[in-house]
């Protein structure tokens, strides 16, 4: 419970800084489904209205599943230091975020950990999502 209280407190503290984005986080993602995906970076789309990068995840049976990881617009990411050049095909990424409400292999990439330990914020600015 304390962790939930802390999260709620941080959420409320950040409420004033929320701004409008392309669409609401809650229209696309389920905040009750926090997930971690670890896989090999297979493709990058540095595009508007969102950037996408795709990671291939291999399960215990050797089956490869591709996950689409949605992040903010290129300009927003770039201004916070999340540059396109930091994403290198073949790297192993650890992506933490929330799963799409419709069950697709699509997630909101709130936190991205690179092989060297750098942590990037992929959140879409002002989408009302978890801060």
């Amino acid at each position, binding site marked *: 419970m304390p962790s939930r209280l802390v999260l709620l407190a*941080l959420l409320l503290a950040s409420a004033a800084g*929320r*701004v409008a984005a392309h669409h609401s986080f809650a229209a696309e993602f389920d905040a*009750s489904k926090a997930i971690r995906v670890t896989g090999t970076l297979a493709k990058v789309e540095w595009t508007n209205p969102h950037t996408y990068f795709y990671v291939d995840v291999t399960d215990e049976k050797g089956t490869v599943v591709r996950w689409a990881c949605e992040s903010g617009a290129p300009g927003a990411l770039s201004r916070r230091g999340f540059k396109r050049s930091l994403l290198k095909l073949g790297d192993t990424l650890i992506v933490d975020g929330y799963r799409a409400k419709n069950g697709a292999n699509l997630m909101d990439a709130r936190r991205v950990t690179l092989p060297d330990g750098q942590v990037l914020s992929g959140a879409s600015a*002002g*989408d*009302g999502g978890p801060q």
Partner: protein
Amino acid sequence: MSPTRILLAAAAVACAAFAAIPILVAQERPMQLDDTKVPKGRPAPRMANGKPDFSGYWKGTTQTRPGGNIGKDLPGWKLPLTPAGEAALKHNLTATVDPEAVCIIGGIPRHNASGLPFEVLQGNNKITFMYWYSYFRLVPFTPGLKHSDDPDPSFFGEEIGRWEGDTLVIDSIGFKDEKVWIDENANPHSDALHVVERWTRPDYNHINVETLIEDPKFYTRSFTYARTWALGEPDEQIQEYSCSENNVDAAHLGFGPGPIRPDGTRGYVDPAPLPPPVPKK
């Protein structure tokens, strides 16, 4: 130890732990400004004709709450919907995706309630508002302009400006009634919408708008929405944004904005925490 102290201590520990993670956010400039820290008193710039010059890159303030809600200035943010307005809201919530998410112009008054910055360039007979998502509106204020008898419906409406002293008044009619949300929360407006914006620049670092919203089809009475923006840095400006370049998310969006929090903003109240950060090597 009191529950409040426990909470503060826990928050401090959480923040300290979080601070140890090198998340790259320090370089990002805020999209909203704390108005208590914005200097006041420097006179507003003026055009050669003596009228205030609204030109600049304008950011919302953190004092504007709730953001994105056109009912911000109403008690409990409760909009005076007619039965037809209630039905339109239900339709927006259950059968439409956010028009902006599928690259449709937000229009007025939605852009005035948005948290996104915008840029203004002003001429002698016309003023341009440029918004994120590469939308813009051009408002003429040549003396003597009148509304058309039957304007073509549009997202910004047929806009006519005029000066009342140092106040720029923009009167708009002729709005679309489909694929429009009046704010981020999916509230509706009809084609009977009439909007009167009164823009002022009280000092160098601020502009204000008082917006009158009349829509007898969907609202039982007119209501107002007031807002202040603060001036951004001189090197900030609207950036390129091609909304339909790669709109993968459009196929995954649910109807409506999702849940609305008790504070009047869109989003979840109690999201699940992310997995714990990866330990540093």
